[in-house]
């Protein structure tokens, strides 16, 4: 069963607030939101831990049909990795 993106996001916000996070997605400006810099794995690890205990609240249903020209970007955009990145960059 897929777990919650919402849970991930909620957990991430908390993680960011308590300054556990240090995640620098490529191409994004870390300075805009005042995070400390560091390795991306540390944030993911922290998020995974928090998420394991958070209530699942939102699931994306993505159908692999009518993919059109770009078959990769749509799926990738809805994955947890991208969600993490989006949340971290606000």
């Amino acid at each position, binding site marked *: 069963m897929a777990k919650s*993106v919402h849970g991930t996001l909620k957990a991430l916000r908390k993680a960011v607030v308590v300054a556990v996070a240090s995640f620098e997605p490529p191409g994004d400006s870390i300075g805009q939101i005042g995070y400390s810099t560091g390795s991306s794995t540390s944030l993911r690890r922290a998020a995974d831990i928090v998420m394991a205990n958070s209530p699942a609240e*939102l699931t994306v249903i993505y*159908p692999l049909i009518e993919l059109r020209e770009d078959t990769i970007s749509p799926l990738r955009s809805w994955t947890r990795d991208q969600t993490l990145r989006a949340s971290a960059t606000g």
Partner: protein
Amino acid sequence: MIAVFAEADRAQAEAMQPLLGPNDELLPVPERSFAAMLNAGIARAATPWLVMTEGHCIAQPGCLDQVMRWIETNPDDRIGNFEFTHFSHKTVNQLVGRWYERTVAQWRTPPDWERAISGGFAIRKSLLDEVGPLQPAFAAFSPHAQSALLHSRGIKVVNVPGAAVLHLDEGSMAEFYDSTERYMRGEFIARSQIDPVFMERYFGAPELWINRARLERGTALAMVRALIIAARTRPRRAAALAGAFASMLGSAAGGLRLRIALNRLWLAFYAMAIERLPMPDDTRFRQFLRSHQRAARLAQLEWLQENPVAPSAGLAEGRRAIDELGPGDIVGVYGLEEFGGRRFRWTEPVAMIRMAARQTACELRLETGGIRGDPLAFLIAVAIAGRALPRKYCTSDAKGTLTIHLPAAFAAAAKDGVVLVCDALVPARGGIPDPRALGLPVISIAINPLP
């Protein structure tokens, strides 16, 4: 995220596995059907909120974060649409993007209604449990049918601020026609299964659908014949009947096959012109809209060719309100309307009422509510089996009810249709933005025996 794939696409889905995170999963379904895929994903999900999307939609950065904020700050909202942007690097992409925006804007403008846009919206899962799954048989129309069900339960669709999706539009006219066809066929399948009054309320009344019995060659010919009879019996009105005659002759002479073939040819021409010929943007867009209408019409005609109208027994004795009449009972009508709280349909200037076979005299009563004044003032002729009914058999009363007395000989012939020919009322001539040519407003039809 649950990425649902059809078994036939397993290799493609497995190639995408490396893109998934630890909490994402691939879910196989037997069929390559948008609705079946979403249903499987919904059944699998265990969260109170779902985000629905399409295979060609790219979540923009922060999209889900915005959804989450919206859920937190609007606890009473239950469905929220995302914003859509379009990536237009080809001519057809641009046209489809423009059309898409226009269509969505139309849905948001009353009296239309806002529906969940399947490219990206968030919904409480409990709502889907209430209205049931999407209908795979309705194909691309299934999310719209579900939206109508939700709307009929008073559930309002709002917008989720800041949640955006990039919609990859069709890149060629062939692809766009294909999408149109899947939507149109799905709509007609839905119309064949869902209460017609409900469907008309939410999706209007396509002329081909409500008058599908006219596609039977005999019906169209009988209506043309009635026009000729009307012109002979009332020569002064002949000129006024010319327009109706010209438009009906096409359906009577052509037949479905020819019309389908002509529409296909037109579409091929449109596709070539839109994709390749140089022309100003607005002209190209106008051609695009016309070709879209033609593609929809072609899909409707093809569906109707595969699913002809079941033979109708015709109207038996008794009174029926207009919304109780089926396509085999009255031919040549427009969508349902209301006047003074009562439902009615305008007929076209030439309309046919089909009665059950009978051997005895009867009267046919058409309640018009006086919406167009005295019906006798604009009724040109009544034709039955190629004969004009003498005028003395038609009467009207102060309430605008038209009574047509049918002596036994005419009643016996009426099983093939009673054709009413009226002077056309054209609202556009009075400056009203309504392109229709109207005949008789009909609230109800009654057939009563005569001694």
